């Protein structure tokens, strides 16, 4: 494991990302253009030689896109990616092909990442052929060596993928990635399609190979227990942003960012007697086409900063306000055609305008202070008048804080250079761990 090296660029750094962005679908000009999907939004980090960096996050957080962008399978919209000091976002042609030998990928789904019409030997040989590696007999030898290295048999050379189980197919994928002796391998969810006993075999294999060939891994996964086992450092991603990055054990022992805290608390532990305080997040991640203006996690954050005048409001009531804001946000985002609006005006589509009922339902059984009710009523009026956008900004004005307005900086939170993307690390606020209403028991 890599112990707390200072986070300056040096001999140790293999890959360095600076302000990397990947936006999709930003075509469409003028008033007809839709906002782009911000799959990766301003990411900086480095991967050190010989380490395993974990990239975790929920589906849609942009982790696979980031992995593919680092390998130049997608071109970055902005930013630089330096591999051994060379900016790979600008290389092309034969330079790119040359560089590709150095960086390989193992894919998630062993069912679809192998060509069913090719033999195992051909599949593993393909990168060697493509790069014109040595002579054909030497290539065959290389493939045989690789087969036995990943725990398959040499006689498997002439068989087809369908004759193998999921775990064996993943070994084939690994052998193919190793064929050109790369320095760096992106492992995109390499074990998530496998059963737990087979998964352990593949994880052990990956660790052995790394030690033997001195590989650097970027390990993308959503299964946090696997990540804890295999990585040295972890980057936690949410909505295209890195929320927290630091040494694995440190993050799992004492997460600093509210998102990491919530994510870790949600893992079911294989221990029926454990009484860890689970934080159940409300809602789902926002649309990456329309991310929140402030902190990406602000729409679901259980530790969001409140405006000073509302800090004493009952947690439950505050939760309802956030739920109501979510409903209004959804309504503002609803892509309604002119026909829809017309029908609505004429009262032909029932059920969409009854925001009063929704508001009453949400705040039912809760004593809402009149100073809050006032604002809710105004917002309800805006929505009822067909202006959910106005209601949304009104609510943000009234109940929002810096969390809704500006994106937080990466604050250093420990001696090892761990960073966390949260306003709560500013000196004027309680840190996320202190402010949590759900006291966290460390494992």
């Amino acid at each position, binding site marked *: 494991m890599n112990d707390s090296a200072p986070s300056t660029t040096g001999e140790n750094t293999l890959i360095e990302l600076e302000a990397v962005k990947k936006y999709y679908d930003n075509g469409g000009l003028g008033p007809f253009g839709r906002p782009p999907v911000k799959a990766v939004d301003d990411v900086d980090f480095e991967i050190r030689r010989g380490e395993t960096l974990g990239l975790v996050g929920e589906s849609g957080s942009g982790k696979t896109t980031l992995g593919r962008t680092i390998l130049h399978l997608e071109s970055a919209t902005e930013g630089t990616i330096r591999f051994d000091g060379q900016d790979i976002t600008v290389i092309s042609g034969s330079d790119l092909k040359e560089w590709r030998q150095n960086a390989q990928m193992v894919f998630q789904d062993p069912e679809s990442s192998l060509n069913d019409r090719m033999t195992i030997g051909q599949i593993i040989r393909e990168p060697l052929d493509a790069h014109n590696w040595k002579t054909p007999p030497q290539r065959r030898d290389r493939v045989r060596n690789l087969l036995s290295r990943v725990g398959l048999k040499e006689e498997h050379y002439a068989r087809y993928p369908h004759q193998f189980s999921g775990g064996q197919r993943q070994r084939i994928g690994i052998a193919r990635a190793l064929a050109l002796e790369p320095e760096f391998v992106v492992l995109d969810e390499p074990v998530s399609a496998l*059963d737990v006993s087979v998964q352990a075999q593949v994880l052990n294999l990956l660790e052995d190979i790394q030690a033997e060939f001195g590989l650097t891994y970027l390990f993308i996964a959503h299964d946090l227990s696997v990540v804890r*086992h295999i990585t040295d450092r972890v980057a936690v991603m949410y909505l295209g942003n890195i929320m927290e990055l630091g040494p694995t054990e440190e993050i799992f022992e004492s997460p600093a960012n509210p998102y990491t805290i919530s994510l870790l608390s*949600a893992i*079911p532990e294989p221990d029926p007697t454990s009484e860890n305080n689970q934080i*159940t997040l409300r809602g789902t991640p926002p649309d990456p086409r329309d991310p929140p203006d402030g902190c990406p996690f602000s729409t679901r954050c259980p530790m969001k900063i409140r405006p000073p005048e509302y800090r004493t409001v009952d947690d439950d009531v505050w939760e309802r306000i956030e*739920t109501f804001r979510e409903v209004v946000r959804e309504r503002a985002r609803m892509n309604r055609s002119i026909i829809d609006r017309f029908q609505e005006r004429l009262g032909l589509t029932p059920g969409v305008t009854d925001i009063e009922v929704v508001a009453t339902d949400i705040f039912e059984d809760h004593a809402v202070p009149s100073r809050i009710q006032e604002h809710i009523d105004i917002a309800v009026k805006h929505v009822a008048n067909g202006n959910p956008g106005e209601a949304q900004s009104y609510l943000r004005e009234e109940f929002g804080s810096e969390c809704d307005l500006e994106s937080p900086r990466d604050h250093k939170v420990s001696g090892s250079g761990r960073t966390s993307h949260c306003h709560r690390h500013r000196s004027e606020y309680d840190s996320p761990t202190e402010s949590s209403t759900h006291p966290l028991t460390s494992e």
Partner: protein
Amino acid sequence: MSGDPELRSETPLLEVENLRTTFYTDKETVRAVDGVSFSIHRGETVGIVGESGSGKSVTARSIMGLVESPGVVEEHSSIRFRDTARVRTFADQFDQHTIDMSDDDSAGARDETSFVVVEDRNEVGEISQGYIDIAQAPENAVRQLRGGDIAMVFQDPLSSLNPVYTVGNQIKEALRLHQGLRGNDATEEAANLLEAVGIPDAKRRLTEYPHEFSGGMRQRAVIAMALACDPEVIIADEPTTALDVTIQAQILDLLDDLQRTRDLAVMFITHDMGVIAEVSDRVNVMYAGEIVESAPVVELFKRPAHPYTQGLLNSIPGWQDDTERLSTIEGEVPTPTDPPTECRFAPRCPKAFEECWKVHPQAVTLDKGTTDHRAACLLYPDDLSTEQAIDQHTQSHNTEGDS
């Protein structure tokens, strides 16, 4: 998930006994479920855990009557559903196929087609105890149970929803079929259901299509559909496997809430030991079509007995103290094609000895003092010597063969 076992009624709501489901193909005969027995009480969650190919989903589909050709639920299998209200309606509706055991005269006159069994009546002559054997019931009877008394939630919510109908339409369809609600009543009830599964702004959501829902929302909508028929039993087949961990937490919370408020019996299938530990009251571990271990959840994790269960727990990263290297179970889950004459786990078992290849182990209690924890392994009962234990397994295998 819930439950004081003391408060539970004595008779389980659903009893599965000796369930065998076989798939006959030209190439081979696959014994996907091979002699599985367990039961579920009201308010109880029974977890079924195993790797892919262990037969957990086929077990669920057999209970739901969803096994299709070339699959066959074998003759001596029995799936007894003991909901008194349903037994009463079925006894009226299918009186040709009902046997009344409460009446001493006609007892035992069971013919091939009977599937409703009345066991006892109260003073006024109403049925007070009985069961419906789903394994023997004809399709039109099973259809009333499926989606009515027994609902199922599948792994992939997108494939359980029809992409060309709004979510509201689909929930209302279930309400019309099973509760006869139509029009505004149905819309009202559908909105209530969506709210009950934690979807805010439910009225508007009803008019949306499945693709407009996120993964977690879709699974909530599927659960709302399952609840539309006010079921007694929910069979959840990997309901959270396709979801992210924060969304999984929401769905598990929701299922727990619903179970509490509605006193549901839940059969929860998963491969995730963490989820099993969180939701189950009792766990059955399946391997190659058989239940190899069965115990209350705390007991199972404290004292895993079968070498397979031990191996499974040890291969979870982060579970072992030694994080350097994961222990593994070598090899892969076999496909059971022949009747068992040996232990199916023996080829992968680190503790296997010679007899493991000769004797098919039976589910036995771990020792004399234990009643609630069974394992199908020749190492048990562990208070007997190995020879005595093997004798016991051989004898019960023979008596089983005779019956």
